[in-house]
C-alpha cells in the first residue's frame, strides 16, 4: 500500500484517540462521518429489543435474556448518589441501534465502506494488518514469530456505532488459540463460552445502566485466551460514536483461562454535537487460576464545548472477577473526555492470592463532571489490591473519586494500599474524595492516603525561572503529578496519554 | 558463648516470597571476646543479626545457633532478650507515644521478671538512667520524648547504646552502630560499649569502617560475603580491608 508509511507513523498512536483539547477546534476527533445508516425505530420498548436481536440473528436464549433485562430495567431507578448533575435523560428520545447500511457483517476489509475506513485512518487507527507490520522484515506468520518480534503490534476491533466493522489479525491470533472477535460473532461461533460467562461478573440486574445495556447492547468485543497462552500481541477495541441521537451500548467480555495473559486497550471518541449522547457500556473480565488481565483505557469521548453544551454521558460498568487462585486484574484508565462520567472499574478478589489494581488519571476541564473510582472486594485469602488515583480539575469542572475497599470476614491477610491525590487548577473547579473502607479482619492491612492541593507556586516559579512558559510549567508539573499512573500504561499508550493531558489542560491557566 | 554452625536461612518478604541469604555460615564467639563482622552491602550482615534475635520473616532452614549451649531458635524474641541477647539496630524504630524512660523501664522489668528477678525500684532506676545518660552525654529532656520519634540519626544510635547500658545484656550485636555518629559521639558511644567489655560478655560488631574498631578493639575480624564467612583473621584483617577494599580478600577466598 502506497500510504503505508504514513499510517505506520500512526501505529504507536494506535487506538489512542488523537489528542484533543476541550475547545471544539482542538478536538481533532470531533468530525462526523457522512454515511448512510440504518436505525432501529426511535425509542425503547420490547420491540426495540427484538429488533436488535433480530438484526443480529441471535439465538432465542439471548433474546430472552435481553427481554428479562429490559423488564427488570423498567422497575429500576436511575442512580442519583454520584456527584454529577445532568438534565433528565429521555430514554424514548434516542436510537438504540445504528449501523452503516449494507451488509450486517463485512467479510473482509474490502467490503467496509470507504467512508468508515477513512474515519479510522483520520483517527490514526490501523485496520489493515500490513500497515501495522510495516517495518518488520516480512510479516510474521506464526504466533511464535510474533512473540519474538518486538515491534509494537496491536490487533484492533473497530466498533462503529452499533456494530463491529473490522477485527484485525484474526488469523494470527487464531493460531495462538486466542479468540478475538466481535461479540455478535462470538454469539454464533462460541455460544457455549458466551453463555457461560455473559452476565457472570456484572449480573443482569446490577444497576440501572448495566441492565439497560443487557437489554439493548449492540456490539462489542469478545476475547478468550486459552490456558497457558500469553497473548502474542496487544488487543484493542476502538469505539467510535458517529450517528446522531444514538446511544452506544457496547459489551465487552474477556476471559483469561488458567495461566494465560492478555493486555487489552480501549480507546473512544465521538463527533462534536450539540446534543448529549449516551454511552452505557458493560465490560466483564474473568481471570481464572493464575491468569492475568491488564485492561487499559484512554477515554476521550467528546466532552461538550466550553459552555457545557453537548458531550457524551459516559455511564459505564466495568468489573473484573479474579475467580480463581492467583488471578490478577489490573485496570488502568486515562479519562479526559465525556461531559459526564460515571464509572468504577472494580475487582472482585474471589480466589485466594488474587491481586486487583486500579490506576487512574482523570482530567476534567470546562464544565465536565466525573465521578469515578473503583471497588476492591476482598473475599479470598491473602488478596491484595492497590489503588492509585490522580485527579486534575480545571475550568468549571467537578471531579469525584469514589471508592470502596471491603475486606470480608474470610479474607485472611488481605492488604490494600490506596493513594488518591487531587490537583485543582483555578478557583472555579471542585475536587472531591469519597472513599469507603470496610474491614472485618484483624490481620488485614489497609492504608489510605489522600491529598488535595494546588500546583505549588514555588515549583511553578522554579520551572519558569529555568525558562519554561507558564503552560509548559503546568504541563510539566501535571505530568509529574500523574507519573505513577502513566508508567503503568503500555509504552505506546503512555506517550499518547501524556500528550492528551497537555492538550486537555490547554487554556486552564492564566 | 555463641556458636553458629552451618547456618542456612531465608528471608521472606511481605508477599511470602523467600530468598536464601545466609548460605552455610559458621562462627564462634567465646565469652570475653569481641568479634567484628565486615562485608559488602547486601552480604547478609543485618540478616544475621535479625536471625539471631528472631525477627519474623527470617527463617532458619538448617544449621544451629547456640548461646551458652542453648538453642536460640527455640526461643521467642523476648526470651532471647531475657537471656541477654541485645541488638543495636541498624535502623532503630520509632515508637510514637512511648517515652524513652517508660520504654526502658518496661523492658528492664520484663526481662527481670522472665529471669525470676525482682523489679527495679523507681528511684534506683532513675538514678541509673541519670548516670548512663550523663556518660553518653544524653540530655534528660530527650529521655522524656517518645522513643526515637523525630530523633536525628546519631541520636537514635546513641539511644540504642543508652538502652544497652541500662539493660546490661550478655551478648551484644551492634549493627553499624557507628553510622550517623559524629566524631565525638563515636568516642562516647565506644567508651560506653567498652565499659561493658568483660569476661562474661561476648560481642558481635558489624561495621564497614576501621574507625569504630580503633575504639572498640576486636579480638577477631570476619568477612561475611554472599551469606558466608569467607575470611577470618586478627585486627590486621580490618586494616587490610580498609586499605585494599574487598576485592583481594574475596579473590583469595574464592581461590
Amino acid at each position: 500500500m502506497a500510504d503505508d508509511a504514513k499510517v505506520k507513523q500512526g501505529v504507536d498512536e494506535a487506538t489512542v484517540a488523537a489528542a484533543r483539547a476541550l475547545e471544539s477546534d482542538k478536538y481533532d476527533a470531533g468530525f462526523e462521518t457522512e454515511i448512510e445508516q440504518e436505525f432501529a425505530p426511535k425509542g425503547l420498548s420490547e420491540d426495540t429489543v427484538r429488533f436488535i436481536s433480530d438484526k443480529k440473528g441471535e439465538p432465542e436464549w439471548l433474546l430472552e435474556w435481553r427481554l428479562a433485562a429490559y423488564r427488570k430495567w423498567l422497575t429500576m431507578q436511575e442512580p442519583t448518589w454520584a456527584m454529577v448533575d445532568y438534565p433528565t435523560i429521555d430514554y424514548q428520545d434516542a436510537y438504540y441501534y445504528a449501523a452503516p447500511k449494507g451488509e450486517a457483517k463485512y467479510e473482509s476489509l474490502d467490503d467496509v465502506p470507504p467512508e468508515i475506513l477513512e474515519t479510522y485512518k483520520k483517527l490514526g487507527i490501523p485496520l489493515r494488518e500490513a500497515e501495522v507490520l510495516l517495518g518488520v522484515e516480512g510479516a510474521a506468520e506464526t504466533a511464535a514469530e510474533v512473540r519474538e518480534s518486538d515491534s509494537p503490534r496491536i490487533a484492533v476491533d473497530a466498533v462503529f456505532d452499533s456494530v463491529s466493522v473490522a477485527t484485525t489479525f484474526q488469523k494470527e491470533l487464531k493460531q495462538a488459540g486466542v479468540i478475538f472477535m466481535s461479540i455478535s460473532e462470538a454469539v454464533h461461533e462460541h455460544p457455549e463460552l458466551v453463555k457461560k460467562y455473559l452476565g457472570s461478573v456484572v449480573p443482569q440486574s446490577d444497576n440501572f445502566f448495566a441492565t439497560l445495556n443487557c437489554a439493548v447492547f449492540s456490539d462489542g468485543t469478545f476475547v478468550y485466551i486459552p490456558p497457558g497462552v500469553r497473548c502474542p500481541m496487544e488487543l484493542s477495541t476502538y469505539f467510535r460514536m458517529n450517528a446522531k441521537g444514538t446511544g452506544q451500548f457496547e459489551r465487552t467480555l474477556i476471559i483469561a483461562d488458567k495461566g494465560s495473559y492478555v493486555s487489552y486497550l480501549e480507546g473512544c471518541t465521538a463527533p462534536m454535537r450539540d446534543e448529549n449522547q449516551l454511552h452505557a457500556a458493560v465490560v466483564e473480565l474473568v481471570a481464572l487460576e493464575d491468569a492475568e488481565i491488564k485492561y487499559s483505557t484512554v477515554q476521550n469521548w467528546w466532552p461538550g464545548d466550553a459552555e457545557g453544551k453537548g458531550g457524551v454521558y459516559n455511564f459505564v460498568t466495568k468489573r473484573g472477577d479474579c475467580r480463581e487462585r492467583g488471578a490478577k486484574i489490573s485496570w488502568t484508565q486515562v479519562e479526559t473526555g465525556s461531559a459526564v462520567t460515571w464509572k468504577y472499574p472494580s475487582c472482585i478478589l474471589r480466589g485466594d492470592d488474587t491481586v486487583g489494581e486500579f490506576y487512574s488519571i482523570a482530567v476534567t476541564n470546562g464544565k465536565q463532571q466525573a465521578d469515578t473510582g473503583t471497588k476492591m472486594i476482598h473475599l479470598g485469602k491473602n488478596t491484595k489490591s492497590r489503588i492509585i488515583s490522580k485527579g486534575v480539575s480545571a475550568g468549571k469542572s467537578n471531579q469525584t473519586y469514589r471508592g470502596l475497599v471491603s475486606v470480608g470476614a474470610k479474607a485472611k491477610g488481605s492488604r490494600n494500599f490506596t493513594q488518591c491525590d487531587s490537583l485543582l487548577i483555578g478557583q472555579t473547579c471542585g475536587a472531591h474524595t469519597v472513599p469507603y473502607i470496610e474491614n472485618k479482619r484483624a490481620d488485614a492491612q489497609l492504608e489510605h492516603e489522600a491529598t488535595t492541593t494546588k500546583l505549588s507556586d514555588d515549583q511553578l516559579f522554579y520551572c519558569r525561572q529555568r525558562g519554561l512558559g507558564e503552560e509548559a510549567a503546568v504541563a510539566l508539573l501535571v505530568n509529574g503529578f500523574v507519573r505513577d499512573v502513566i508508567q503503568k500504561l503500555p509504552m505506546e499508550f503512555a506517550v499518547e496519554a501524556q500528550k492528551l493531558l497537555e492538550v486537555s489542560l490547554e487554556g486552564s491557566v492564566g | 558463648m555463641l556458636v553458629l554452625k552451618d547456618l542456612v536461612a531465608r528471608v521472606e518478604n511481605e508477599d511470602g516470597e523467600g530468598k536464601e541469604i545466609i548460605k552455610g555460615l559458621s562462627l564462634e564467639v567465646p565469652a570475653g571476646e569481641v568479634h567484628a563482622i565486615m562485608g559488602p552491602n547486601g552480604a547478609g550482615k543485618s540478616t544475621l543479626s535479625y536471625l539471631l534475635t528472631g525477627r519474623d520473616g527470617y527463617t532458619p532452614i538448617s544449621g544451629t545457633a547456640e548461646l551458652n549451649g542453648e538453642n536460640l531458635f527455640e526461643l521467642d524474641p523476648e526470651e532471647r532478650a531475657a537471656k541477654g541477647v541485645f541488638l543495636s539496630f541498624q535502623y532503630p524504630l520509632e515508637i510514637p507515644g512511648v517515652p524513652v524512660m517508660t520504654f526502658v523501664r518496661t523492658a528492664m522489668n520484663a526481662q527481670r521478671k522472665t529471669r525470676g528477678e525482682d523489679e527495679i525500684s523507681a528511684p534506683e532506676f532513675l538514678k541509673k538512667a541519670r548516670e548512663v545518660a550523663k556518660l553518653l552525654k544524653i540530655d534528660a529532656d530527650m529521655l522524656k520524648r517518645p522513643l526515637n520519634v523525630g530523633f536525628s540519626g546519631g541520636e537514635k544510635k546513641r539511644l540504642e547504646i543508652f538502652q544497652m547500658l541500662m539493660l546490661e545484656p550478655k551478648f551484644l550485636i551492634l549493627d553499624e552502630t557507628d553510622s550517623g555518629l559524629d566524631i565525638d559521639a563515636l568516642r562516647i558511644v565506644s567508651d560506653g560499649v567498652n565499659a561493658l567489655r568483660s569476661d562474661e560478655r561476648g560481642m558481635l560488631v558489624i561495621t564497614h569502617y576501621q574507625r569504630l574498631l580503633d575504639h572498640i578493639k576486636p579480638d577477631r575480624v570476619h568477612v561475611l560475603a554472599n551469606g558466608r564467612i569467607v575470611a577470618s583473621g586478627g585486627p590486621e584483617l580490618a586494616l587490610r580491608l580498609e586499605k585494599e577494599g574487598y576485592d583481594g580478600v574475596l579473590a583469595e577466598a574464592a581461590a
Partner: protein
Amino acid sequence: MPDVIDKIDPGVARFAEILSKFGEDPRRQRAFDAFASVGIPHRRVENWRWSDIRAGLKSIDGAAPVAVPADPFADVLGAVFRFSDKGFQPPAKRPAGVQYYSKSDAPAFASAEELPMGALAAALADDPAAVVIEIAAPLAEPIRLVFDGQSDRFHHVAIILREGAQATILESCLSGGGFANAVIEYTLEKGASAERLVMQSGGASTVQLHTAKVALAADARFSQTVYATGSKLCRVETRLVHEGSHSEAILNGAYLLGDGYHCDFTSHVRHADEDCKTEQAVKGAALAGGKGAFQGKFYVKRGAQRTDANMQHNALLLEDGAEINAKPELEIYADDVACAHGNTCGALDADQLFYLRQRGIPEAEAKALLTRSFVADAFAEISDEALQELFLDAAHAWLTEVR
C-alpha cells in the same frame, strides 16, 4: 424524597405522639418535620449506613436498664449542669462570668435538615425546652455538663461564648438504658476559645446520640477531644462551620469497643471563610464483636482560600470478629488549599512489635503498650495535664480490664 408518607414508620409515629403533647408549636414542628422527612435512619440511608438507628432502637425495646456508668469527671472541679431523664438540674451556685437560662418555649433549631436526629432532640426536649449557657469572660474552672439516665430522654443545650471568652466544657455522656438523644449548639464569637472534652460511656442496651453543632466566628478556637467506649448503638456527631476567617478547630477522639459495643464518630467540617485550620486525629480499636465507624468530611467552600485541613483516622482490629468501617471524605471547591486525609486499618505494626520484644518485653505486654500509645495520640491536644491524664487512665483501664 423518601416515601415516609406512604408507609408511616412506626418509629416516627412513636415520636410524633410525644410531640403532640406540646400542642401547636411551629418551631418544634419544623424541627420534627426535618427528622420525619428522613425517618428513623437505617442502613440504607447513606449517612447512617454503619449506624442503623432503626435496628438499634428495636433491639433495646423493653430491655432492662443497667446502672448508669460512673462519671470519669466526677472529681473535677466546676459547676455541674445535669441533664437526666428526671429533667434539668442547674448548679448549686452560678459560676462567675456565666449566665444561664431555662427556656420554656423551644427555640428554633437551625440547619435541622442537616442534623435530622439533632432536630428530633430539639423537637422533643422537655423540662426545659432548652438551656442556654452564656459565657462572657475567661473562666477559671471548667463547666461540666452531665447527661445521664436510664430511660428515653431528649435534651437541647446552647452554649454561647462571647467575644474573647474562654472556657473548658466537660461533657459526661452516660447512659444505663433507653434512647438518649442530646443536641448541643456551640456558638463562638470573635476570638472566643473553647475546649470541649467528652467522655461517653453506656450500657449494652442503650442507644446514645450525642450531637454538637459548632459555629466559629473569626479567630475563634475550638478544641475537642472525645473518648468513647460505645453502647448498643452510639453516635457522637459534630457539625462544625468556620464562619469567620482565621478560626481553628481540633476534632480529636478515640473509641475503644468491646464485644457487643458500637460507636460511630461522625463529623462534618465546613470551611466557609479563608485561612481557617482544622486538625483531626481519631483513633479506634475494637475487639471481637465490637463495631466501630468513622465518617469524617471536610467541605471547603469556593473562595475559602488557604484552608489547611488534615484528617487522620487510624483503626486497630485487635481480634478477628471486630469490624471497623471508615469514610474519610473531602469536598473541595477552592484551589489554594492543603487538605489531606489518611486512614489506616489493621493490626499493630510488626516491626515495632519486634523491636519491643527484642528488648525483652513479652508479646502481650508489648501489644498493650503499643495500643496504649496508639490511643494516646488522640489525647495529645488536651491542654490540662490532669485532664489528659484522666483520659489516658480511662483508656488504660479499658485496655487492662476489658481486654
